[in-house]
């Protein structure tokens, strides 16, 4: 086992030189270290200017997504060990404009998330005094998987379509729309259809399928999108044979 390992880190300093560069750092190697631990070591002991996001370091806050040797990963949950002997290349997530170093701009996602109305929509709200909406474990199972999204953006980074067509609503936002569409308490599917049925909704997707592969929480956004396409298509053809129904 080596004593140290080299990291090639993507550096972009908007106030300095124009083009990004890769800078090499040598850090101690430890079996139990994640890529994030190595970055923290650089930041604390070698170069305080290195910029990146992190918070929970237990794979649930979704902050620390980066590209490590070409793959989008949560750096707090990615050991150094499989990349030995290195060097390990660390870059920001693909598909997002880079603000600085390893920090991407996520505003686009936040706007899209809001556009798909990720909240319970009901014609009539039951007062809390009347207790909970009943929901059996089977009913919960229908949407549970899509509710596990931590918004870490790995799926967007893995999606070439998002990189090619930044207007695409994208995997996580569509999965979250489906999370509510399939919730037995929700009645808002028609409103979300307005957004999802646009070309930049589900139809931009060509099912590369990488979003579901890189998802650290097994949300399967690709599945959510294909299911929506099937349902929307069936609705459309049904509306052709049943007059008076709008797709």
């Amino acid at each position, binding site marked *: 086992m080596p004593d140290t390992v080299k990291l090639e880190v993507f550096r972009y300093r908007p106030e300095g030189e124009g083009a990004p560069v890769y800078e090499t750092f040598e850090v101690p190697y430890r079996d139990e270290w994640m890529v994030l631990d190595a970055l923290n070591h650089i930041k604390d002991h070698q170069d305080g200017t290195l910029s990146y996001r992190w918070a929970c370091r237990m794979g649930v806050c979704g902050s620390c997504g980066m590209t490590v040797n070409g793959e989008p990963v949560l750096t707090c949950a990615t050991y150094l060990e499989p990349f030995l002997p290195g060097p390990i290349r660390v870059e920001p997530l693909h598909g997002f404009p880079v603000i600085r170093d390893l920090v991407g*701009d996520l505003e686009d996602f936040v706007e899209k998330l809001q556009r798909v109305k990720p909240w319970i929509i009901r014609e009539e709200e039951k007062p809390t005094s009347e207790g909970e909406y009943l929901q059996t474990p089977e009913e919960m199972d229908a949407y549970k998987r899509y509710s596990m999204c931590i918004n870490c953006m790995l799926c967007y980074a893995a999606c070439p379509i998002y990189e090619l067509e930044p207007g695409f609503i994208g995997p996580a936002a569509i999965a979250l729309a489906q999370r509510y569409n399939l919730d037995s308490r929700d009645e808002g599917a028609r409103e979300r259809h307005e957004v999802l049925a646009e070309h930049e909704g589900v139809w931009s997707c060509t099912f590369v399928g990488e979003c579901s592969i890189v998802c650290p929480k097994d949300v399967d956004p690709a599945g959510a999108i294909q299911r929506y396409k099937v349902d929307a298509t069936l609705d459309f053809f049904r509306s052709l044979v049943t007059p008076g129904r709008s797709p």
Partner: protein
Amino acid sequence: MKSQARIPTGRISDPGYPRASNPEYTRHHPRWYRRRMPIFWWLRKLAYTKFILRELTSQPVMYVTLFLLGKMWVLSRGPEAYETFIQWLSHPALLAFHALVLAGLLFHTVTWLNLTPKALVLRVAGRKIPGWAIVGAHYGAWLGLSGAIFWILAGR
């Protein structure tokens, strides 16, 4: 309120988006760097290459469909025409090419059937049918239909 408080979205379509080529750095408007997707982006990762190959199976599908129609046309032209056609098909170069086309078709079939559980969620008596069962059923259907085609066209 919101637009005032937020930083520009950084989308290229946004007129407020500061271009990377803009040499001027303004104190409060950082320049975002957007990496351009290379034209051969699908060579960047093995998964993307597989994806583009999968998409290119549209060409074998097209070819085979035209081939089948062509064969119908030949059959309508009488036995001599058919005989010439068969001769022509037996040429090793064409056979090799057709083997390649068949490989493309099989790639289409396998990728298509493997993805079925993503698009289909079926429930029987409230229980979700697992993905392997959906894939399995489709492979079963494929084998069954292929067997039937063999039996009708080549089985006697």
